[in-house]
């Protein structure tokens, strides 16, 4: 019912015939279609689809690509590569782990946990499984289980990685100070760029929430330098810059990232804040189309950003509040909490913020922005 209403509202422009032969309609992502090693792997797997090693390797490549490009089509390709095993109740552990990763990505947390539990039963030394399970527990709010999983890691990997795992969980469950110290000590023991970037990103978020803006800025810069351009880091840094009233820096930061919806949203807000209304208008229209089409599909994963969109760019606090409430039913981390509080304050409806207020009290979350919002 609702979808039909959305579709007619979407009413895309009429299809058209391009005027000239050389008009470029679409630019393809280089890696997938450029005829490089990935294409070769695909071809080899196509000839030998039941080859577990080939399939797992390709699936891993796709997942990495999907993450770095913020493009979920790749996760679909990964699933397709694993097709001979996908529906099996008891596939090889390698496939199970990849399947858990893909499921977790779609927020099918229970199914992912089932797979991970099975992997760990047959392969208790599988560090990746411990780590993935820890993160799922963290995201679903089961902090004790998350820390238990992180601690198990110490037996199988270097302590630094376990520390980062623990630090990450502590950071979102009300032990910001301890988390920071743990991460800082782990940082000195970490060699790998990706891991360092992760630790630094979390440290930046902690200091941001505690209101230590200068240190946060430092850590963000360090994180950006530590590794490749990471969409998650860019998003969090953009939020930080927007809060500090530095929209022009956001536009600079995100200049080439408008393919990613979450980053486009931040760019749109920055454009508006910087007074570049034409640009803001253009970005807003693009975003509207993207959110609408995602909803047609029944996609619920954009809720928090959709709320931010409604609040900042459409000035519709009521709608934003409704969206954050739906989001809160599905996930609860500090960013979700903050968004709900913002929306509740803007819509003048503190009644709606009650569950978040209780959550903050229960986990003793320290967050400068939230405190300010609560005082309003």
């Amino acid at each position, binding site marked *: *019912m*609702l979808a*039909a209403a959305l*579709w*007619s509202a979407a009413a*895309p422009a*009429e*299809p058209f015939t*391009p005027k000239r*032969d050389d008009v*470029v*309609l*679409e*630019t*393809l992502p*280089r890696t997938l*279609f*450029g005829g490089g090693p990935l294409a070769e792997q695909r071809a080899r797997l196509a000839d030998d689809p039941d080859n577990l090693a080939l399939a797992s390797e390709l699936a*891993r490549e796709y*997942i990495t690509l*999907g*993450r*770095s490009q*913020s*493009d*979920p*089509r790749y996760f*679909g*390709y990964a*699933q*397709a590569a694993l*097709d001979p095993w*996908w529906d099996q109740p008891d596939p090889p552990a390698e496939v199970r782990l990849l399947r858990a990763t893909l499921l977790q*990505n779609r*927020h099918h947390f229970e199914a992912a946990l089932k797979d991970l539990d099975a992997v760990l039963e047959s392969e208790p030394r599988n560090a*990746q499984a411990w*780590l*993935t399970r820890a*993160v799922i527990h963290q995201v679903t709010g089961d902090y004790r289980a998350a820390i238990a999983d992180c601690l198990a890691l110490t037996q199988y990997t270097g302590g630094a990685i376990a520390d980062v795992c623990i630090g*990450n969980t502590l950071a979102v469950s009300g032990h910001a100070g301890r988390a920071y110290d743990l991460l800082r000590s782990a940082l000195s023991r970490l060699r*790998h760029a*990706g891991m360092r970037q*992760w630790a630094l990103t979390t440290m930046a978020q902690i200091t941001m929430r505690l209101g230590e803006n200068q240190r946060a800025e430092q850590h963000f810069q360090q994180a950006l330098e530590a590794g490749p351009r990471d969409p998650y*880091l860019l*998003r969090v840094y953009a939020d930080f810059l927007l809060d500090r009233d530095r929209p022009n820096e956001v536009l600079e930061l995100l200049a080439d990232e408008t*393919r990613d*919806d*979450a*980053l486009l949203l931040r760019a749109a807000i920055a454009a508006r804040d910087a007074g570049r209304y034409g640009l803001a208008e253009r970005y807003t229209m693009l975003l509207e*189309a*993207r959110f*609408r*089409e*995602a909803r*047609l*599909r029944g996609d619920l994963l954009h809720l*928090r950003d959709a709320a931010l969109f409604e609040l900042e760019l459409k000035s519709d606090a009521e709608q934003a509040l409704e969206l954050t409430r739906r989001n809160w039913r599905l996930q609860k981390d500090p960013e979700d909490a903050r968004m709900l509080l913002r929306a509740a304050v803007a819509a003048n*409806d*503190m*009644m709606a913020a009650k569950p978040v207020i209780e959550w903050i009290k229960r986990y003793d979350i320290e967050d400068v922005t939230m405190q300010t919002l609560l005082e309003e």
Partner: protein
Amino acid sequence: MGRWVFLLLTLLALPAHAHKPSDSYLGITSDGGAYRAQWDIALRDLELAVGLDMNRDGEITWAELRQRQVAVAAYALGHLRIETAAGACAPEVTDTLVEHHSDGAYAALILILNCPGAVQGLNVQYSLLFDLDPTHRGLLRYTADGATSTHVLGPGNPGVSLEPGEANLWRAFADYLIEGVWHIWIGFDHILFLITLLLPAVLVYRSGRWQPADRFRPAIIDVLKIVTAFTVAHSVTLTLAVLEVVSLPARFVETAIAFSVLVTALNNLYPVFAGSRWLLAFGFGLIHGFGFANVLVDLGLARGALAASLFGFNLGVELGQAAIVAVFFPLAYLIRGSAFYRRAILGAGSVAAVGIAAVWMFERLAGYEILGL
């Protein structure tokens, strides 16, 4: 250490990905007796499936798409099966255009379906791209006889049966009927208003006191007058509000609904409108209608089935009401003679209703929650 990279990236993947996965848009319309369709398929997906970028320069031009349109059509039609009761259809692509969606350019295939026999209903089986990308979905929109229905087709549910307009209207009607019944059941303020208003129906106000009614008929007529007045009033404003002829801010409406309960309850204790409570029912019914309208707007209405949905919802509300009254009235009539009814239920009950209504008004005006009702 390469594996750790994978690990790390997995972990940070938890915040939701920032695009949507692959979709195609298939719109089927019934035009007189024949079916036409437009099928938008992403160029990226077509590149994966049949290959479009012949010169391998990473860009797809209009010329390249045109050169491959036969292959594209063959691939698409090879993954779509449509049949009617009279047999299989033989769809063909009559033209290939371009359409832009929020995530890139799509090939817009214009189709005629060529279905045998008199057109009654279609069965569609969709399998595009599933072997290459199981997260791909076909978003099907079916329009016939002024009604539109949408369906999401995936590997788990690749087929759908589409009935012409009438059946879609019936489905809209039925869906909204259920929503209507449900919303009156969970609409505690509406129910409280109605019950409070009906409490004195089995009594008459004589010599400054409420006394049990002597005969059945006046009691039942009173109930009918009130319920009818309430129904007519809220149906009118519900329709006006949904059609956006009249619009009132939600906060005002909610507060006014609470006010209606307050006034009605007070009227039970200090009867100003003793025998003509249907006026209260009508007057406040107008406000309650706006309350229902807010609900309907939240549910979302399909333009194509507006009348059916609206009528269904309204009827659902009536049925829900009727059920409540049917339970309440016989019980009330039976015990109308007892002091318990007059003092405890009517008296204390109305006082309680006044209290609740006052709290609601405060909550709704100030935006705080106290009772959580």
